[in-house]
C-alpha cells in the first residue's frame, strides 16, 4: 500500500517535471524571445544584446531552465514581459477566482450528477433515464460558448434575472462576485454534471447486472436495500476518477467560459497573455494548470485506493 502510494507520487512528480521541460522547450522553440517582445521594433544590434545580457538570456538553455524551475518551485515566476507586474501576484488573484468558480460549480454539479446518474441508471431506458440522458448529451456536446450565449440570452436579456457579464475586478473580495458569478457557474455545472452523470449511469447499470446483485435479488432482499447496500457503494467508486478527469478537462474549458463572461480568472489571463505574447506569464500559467491536473488525478487515484481494498496491491494498476 505504502509502496504503491510512493510510486504514484513519484510518477506524478515525474509528469510535472516532464511538463515543465515541454513548456520550457516549447517556448524555446518559438521564434523570438522575451527581449524581442519587450523591445519590439528596436530589437536589434547592441540594444538587443544588452537586454539579453541583463535578463540572462545569453546563458545556455539548460542553465536558464534550472533558473526558471528553481524559481517556480519557490513561487517566483519573475515579472511579465512588460516588466510592470510580478507574475506570482498577477496569477495569484486570477487563480483564486478560477478556483472559486470551479469549486462552487463542483459543489453543485457533483452531487447533482450523482443523484441524476443513479436515477437514470435505475430507470434504464425508461422515461426518466431517456430524459436525463438526452439532456446530458446536449449539455456535454454543445460548445461551452454556445451554452453560455443561450443562457445569457434567456436568463439575462429576456428574463433579466441575473447579470450576463462580470464587471468586478480581479482582486475584489469573493463576495463581490455575487450574483455575477451565477451564470458562469451554471455553464460550468451543466457541462461537468453531464460528463459525470453519464459515468454514474453506466456504472450503476453495470453493477445492477452483476452476480452479487442477482444473488441478493434471488434471496429476496428488498430492492431499496439492494440499491443502498450493494449498488451505490460499488457504482460510485469509479466516479472519483471521472470527477478528476472532468475537472482536468474543465481546466481547458474554463478559458472559453471565462472569456465569454469576462470573468477575471486564470483562463482569461491565459488568452490575454498569449495574445500579447507575454511568454513568461504563459509559462507560469501552463505550469500551474498542469500541476493542478496532475494533483487532481493523483488525489483521485489515492482516494480510490483508500476506498477500494482491491486496488491496494502493486500489480493491479488500472489502465
Amino acid at each position, binding site marked *: 500500500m505504502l509502496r504503491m502510494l510512493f510510486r504514484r507520487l513519484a*510518477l506524478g512528480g*515525474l*509528469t*510535472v517535471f*516532464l*511538463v515543465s*521541460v*515541454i*513548456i520550457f522547450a*516549447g*517556448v524555446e522553440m*518559438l*521564434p523570438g524571445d522575451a527581449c524581442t517582445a519587450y523591445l519590439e521594433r528596436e530589437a536589434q544590434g547592441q540594444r538587443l544584446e544588452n537586454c539579453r545580457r541583463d535578463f540572462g538570456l545569453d546563458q545556455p538553455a539548460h542553465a536558464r531552465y534550472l533558473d526558471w524551475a528553481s524559481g517556480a518551485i519557490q513561487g517566483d515566476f519573475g515579472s511579465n514581459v512588460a516588466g510592470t507586474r510580478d507574475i506570482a501576484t498577477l496569477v495569484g488573484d486570477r487563480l483564486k477566482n478560477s478556483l472559486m468558480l470551479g469549486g462552487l460549480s463542483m459543489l453543485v454539479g457533483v452531487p447533482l450528477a450523482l443523484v441524476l446518474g443513479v436515477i437514470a441508471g435505475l430507470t434504464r431506458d425508461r422515461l426518466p433515464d431517456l430524459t436525463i440522458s438526452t439532456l446530458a*448529451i*446536449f449539455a456535454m*456536446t*454543445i*460548445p*461551452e*460558448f*454556445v451554452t453560455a*450565449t*443561450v443562457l*445569457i*440570452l434567456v436568463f439575462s*436579456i*429576456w428574463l433579466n434575472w441575473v447579470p450576463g457579464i462580470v464587471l468586478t475586478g480581479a482582486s475584489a473580495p469573493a463576495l463581490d462576485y455575487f450574483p455575477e458569478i451565477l451564470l458562469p457557474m451554471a455553464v460550468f455545472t451543466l457541462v461537468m454534471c453531464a*460528463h459525470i452523470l*453519464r*459515468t454514474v*449511469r*453506466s456504472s450503476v447499470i453495470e453493477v445492477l447486472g452483476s452476480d452479487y446483485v442477482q444473488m441478493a435479488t434471488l434471496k429476496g432482499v428488498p430492492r431499496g436495500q439492494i440499491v443502498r447496500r450493494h449498488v451505490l457503494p460499488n457504482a460510485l467508486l*469509479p466516479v472519483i476518477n*471521472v470527477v478528476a*478527469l*472532468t475537472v*482536468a*478537462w474543465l*481546466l*481547458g474549458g474554463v*478559458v*472559453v467560459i471565462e*472569456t*465569454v463572461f469576462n470573468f477575471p480568472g486564470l483562463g482569461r489571463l*491565459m*488568452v490575454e497573455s*498569449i*495574445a500579447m*505574447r507575454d511568454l513568461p506569464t*504563459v509559462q507560469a*500559467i*501552463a505550469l500551474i*494548470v*498542469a500541476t493542478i*491536473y*496532475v494533483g487532481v488525478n493523483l488525489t483521485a487515484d489515492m482516494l480510490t485506493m483508500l476506498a477500494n481494498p482491491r486496488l491496494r496491491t502493486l500489480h493491479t494498476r488500472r*489502465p
Partner: protein
Amino acid sequence: MTDAAPSARHPGAALRMLAILRDLVRRPSGAVGLTLVLGHALLALLSPWLVPHDVTAVSALSMLGQPDALHWLGTDHLGRDIFSRVLMGGREAIWITGIATPLAVMWGGLVGIWFGLVGGRTDDVLMRIVDAFLALPWILKMLVLIVTFGTGDLVLIPTLAFFYGIPVIRIARAATHDVVARDYVQAARARGHRRLDIIVRELLPNVRDALLVEGAMRWSWMLLAFSSLSFLGFGVSPPTPDWGLMIADARGFMSFAPWGVLGPVIALSSLIIGINLTADALARTLGIDRAQKAPV
C-alpha cells in the same frame, strides 16, 4: 453492448462496411445522427450555389435587420445576410476538421499500436511523455502555436492533427494490449514476421474498430475546439463566414438583435450532436463500450 453485426466476421471489407452501415441506420440515434451529418456535409458542398445573398456583401442600410422575406434570419451588424452566412458558415470548420481528424487518428493510432507491441521501457517512457502533454489544456497548446504561426489552414490542420492524435495513442495502445497476447499474434511472432508485418496484418484489423469510433469522437471534439478558437478570434479570419465567429460577433448586439445568434447556434449544435449520435451508434454497432471515457 455486444450485439455486433453477425456479418462482421466475414471477410470482404465492402460487405462488412455495408453490414455496419445497415446496422447503424437501424438504430434511432444512428439514423438521426447520420442524417444530420450527411445533411451538413451536403450543405457545405453545395452552399456556394444555394446562398440567396453574397455572404460578404456589406450594406449600411440594413444593419441588424429583423428577419423578413428578403433576409430569412435577419442581417448582422454589417448588414450581411445571416441566412446565407449560416449556410456557408460550416464549410471552413468541416473542411479543416475533416482533414485533420483522419490524420490525427492515423498517426496516433500507428504510434499507439507500435508502442503497445514493443512494450517495456520504451513504452513506459513514451506514456509519461503522453501524460505530460495531456496535462496541458488543449486550448493553451493550440493558442500558443496559432499566435506564433498564424491562423491559415496550413497551420490549423497540422496543429489540430498533432494535438488530437496524442490521446489516440492511449486508446490505440490499450486496444493493442488487449490483442497482443492472443494466439495469432504469438503465432505470427513465432513464424518470425517482422514487426511491421504484424502491425499491418494482425494488429491493425483488430484495432481498427476502436480507432473508427475514436475518430468519430475526435471529430466532434475537434469541431468543438475549432469553433471555440474561432469564437475567441483565433480561428477563421473575417470576412469568411464561420459559426463560431458569427456567434462572437452577434453576441454584442444580443440585447436588441437576438436573432443573430440563433442561426449559427442551431447550425453548430446540430452538427456536433449529429456526430456524437453517430459515434454513439457506431460504438454500439461495433460492440465497443466507450461509456467510461471522458474527453481529454
